[in-house]
């Protein structure tokens, strides 16, 4: 049981630090959250720089253009990038964290060849078409229909409605879950995973404005969208299993940088509290300290999870990631509330017109509303812990019932 870098890890960390020190000053400032073309350009440029330096697809296998780094090196990368103030993965989120790993695990050689190198170079942006207005936590209840058409059945014709489609405005492709089985069949069967080019006729977007005023998400309306059967990943009807592969990756590493961010933000809050004399209030001071303990423990839990993933057969993060997701989301919301409390009435006055830039405390506080909801609600995480880890019986109704 130890936390220190091995000599190899230390070398990796030092090289990365030196590269970040040299590279970050050459970047333009982060564009406004609502300027989507500028965001795409900014994030793609960063991804291209990572690719040139050999840091793209860090934990992906070398045979698919990744670096084949260990989970611990991946953790070091996320930690150092955050400490250095490097850009987030941004609009490359779905490509690098969802679609890419899924394509590596499940796609055909032609599909991999077509997409994986482009994702790694930052040339191809992906979005996610999973959730629907009536299929959120109960994702398997999705109803977007795909029907085979054409002389040899060479197209799926897709009709339906997707929601929470992050980065849809700038995406080239969508990882799309559709129902190919009968609407009243067993809901976990009959789901299929498709690669949908976003410029296909019949795809319409309606931006959803969040409580913070950003247009991070969209609703996506699909009307008679024709998708070649060759764009199917895996077998028809096997999409649920394939989607689950994606989720395991998301819960494992999706929030790691944010723990580092949150811990630094807490030090800023402590400094602000000292400045504003809120530090003299023992209740405020102790709440800040209690939260520091929570984030330090979460960081330790990340290291435990990563160490276990490094030595597991498949490298997929273990069930400890649900504990992490549950506690981190709640701690993150406490952090933003505490920040507002220390700022006092200043927290009611936004300095930016739309209040939508990363790090602005008012925006972060509103954005954090989604933390206990996105990527599996806290209630779903508790079900996962209760059922998959502790072996408690399922709710009787969850096992049966059709797609409707």
């Amino acid at each position: 049981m130890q936390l220190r870098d091995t000599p190899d890890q230390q070398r990796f960390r030092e090289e990365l630090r030196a590269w970040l020190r040299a590279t970050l000053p050459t970047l333009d400032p982060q564009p406004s959250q609502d300027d989507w073309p500028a965001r795409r350009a900014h994030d793609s440029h960063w991804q291209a720089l990572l690719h040139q330096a050999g840091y793209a697809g860090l934990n992906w296998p070398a045979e698919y253009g990744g670096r084949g780094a260990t989970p611990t090196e991946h953790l070091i990368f996320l930690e150092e990038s955050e400490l250095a103030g490097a850009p987030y993965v941004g609009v490359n989120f779905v490509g690098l964290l969802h679609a890419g790993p899924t394509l590596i695990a499940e796609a055909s050689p032609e599909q991999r060849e077509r997409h994986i190198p482009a994702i790694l170079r930052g040339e191809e942006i992906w979005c996610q078409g999973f959730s629907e207005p009536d299929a959120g936590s109960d994702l398997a209840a999705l109803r977007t229909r795909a029907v085979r058409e054409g002389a040899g059945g060479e197209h799926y014709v897709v009709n339906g409605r997707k929601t929470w489609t992050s980065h849809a405005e700038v995406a080239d492709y969508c990882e799309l879950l559709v129902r190919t089985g009968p609407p009243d069949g067993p809901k976990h069967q009959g789901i299929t995973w498709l690669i949908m080019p976003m410029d296909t006729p019949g795809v319409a977007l309606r931006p959803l404005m969040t409580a913070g005023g950003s247009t991070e998400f969209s609703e996506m309306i699909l009307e008679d969208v024709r998708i070649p059967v060759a764009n199917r990943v895996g077998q028809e009807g096997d999409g649920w299993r394939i989607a689950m592969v994606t989720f395991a990756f998301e819960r494992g590493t999706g929030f790691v940088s944010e723990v580092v961010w949150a811990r630094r933000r807490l030090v800023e809050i402590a400094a602000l509290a000292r400045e504003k004399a809120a530090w003299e209030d023992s209740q405020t001071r102790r709440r800040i300290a209690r939260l520091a303990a929570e984030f330090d423990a979460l960081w330790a839990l990340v290291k435990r999870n990563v160490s276990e993933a490094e030595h597991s057969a498949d490298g997929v993060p273990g069930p400890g990631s649900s504990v992490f997701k549950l506690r981190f989301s709640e701690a993150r919301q406490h952090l933003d509330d505490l920040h507002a409390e220390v700022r006092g009435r200043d927290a009611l006055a936004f300095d930016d017109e739309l209040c939508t830039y990363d790090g602005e405390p008012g925006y972060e506080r509103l954005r954090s509303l989604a933390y206990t909801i996105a990527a599996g609600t806290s209630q779903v995480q508790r079900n996962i812990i209760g059922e998959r880890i502790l072996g408690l019986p399922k709710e009787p109704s969850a096992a049966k019932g059709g797609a409707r």
Partner: protein
Amino acid sequence: MDFRPTQDQLALAGAVRDVLGKHSAPGTPGQKAPEAGIGGVDVALWRDLAELGIFGVRVPEAGGGLGLGHAESVHVFEELGRCLATGPFTATALAAPLLPEYAGGRHRVGFGDLTGGEPQILEHLDALDALLVVETVEGEAPGAVGHTQVLRVEPIELRADAVPHPVDPCVPLHRLRQKPLRGEIVGDAGTADALLREGALLTAAYQVGIAAVLTERAVAYAKQRTQFGRAIGSFQAVKHLCADMFARAELARAAVHSAAVLLDDEAAGHDGADLPAAAAAVSAAKLLADEAAVTNARSAIQVHGGMGCTWEMGLHFHLKRAWALSMAYGRAAEHTDLISESL
């Protein structure tokens, strides 16, 4: 980095668990109400654990110990917590690296922190061979700042009254009615700080054991107990209580293991520039472990329903011990203040 427990650490924990399994543990279901004076040290258990070497974990091999670190100690103490092992385990394990005659576990050493202003309650006084006391000595000139030191006191010479009904029926208490104490100075302020910090770490590990075993008991009961025609663990209201118990114990264990490793690294003189300070990490561990043990005890009782409140179900033993330990080696307010100094 490899933060997983090593095979040797797991083997040590397994050996301690085996020994504990051969003795009856407080809090197991079906226990009768204790008669007066039933609590105190289980001498046979103490002897068996001493033979295993648990008091000399951090004593060098040349001094008759195992020559290991905090990372191993916390594994031992989590096992003690799982079985509510009763006796001055923490204080004796703290005294052993300081005073090597205690490494073999032939003596029982107690601990008292007299730096605070509150009335002093001492545990297991009648069973002790020695008592280590942390105290602040007044400065000689009026208004001079005092200094903290560690004193070894002969328990038999102390004037103290037995508490008729300790909340935790297993741990006999005495109220000290003597000040100042006479004894031999065995450490300075630095020693006192180290004792308090290491005591907080071992206590936190013990609390993790309580939190973990209570999760297991609540889950087992939720699977077996049926109401409304199905196992109560299938209801989300109960399932989510259990999930939160698990999350609390896991997070607290990660904090305890991290603090143990950081303390060992600090002692070995490793550069810790990238790592949080060990002292703050110990305080974080104690905070989270106290919360986990106390809250999980309440949740376990809740999952067991009315039976959870009975003597014979035994869960009250865990709650009472968790309460007592949350006041040992620094309480929440003291540890949060300590963390806040590092921010």
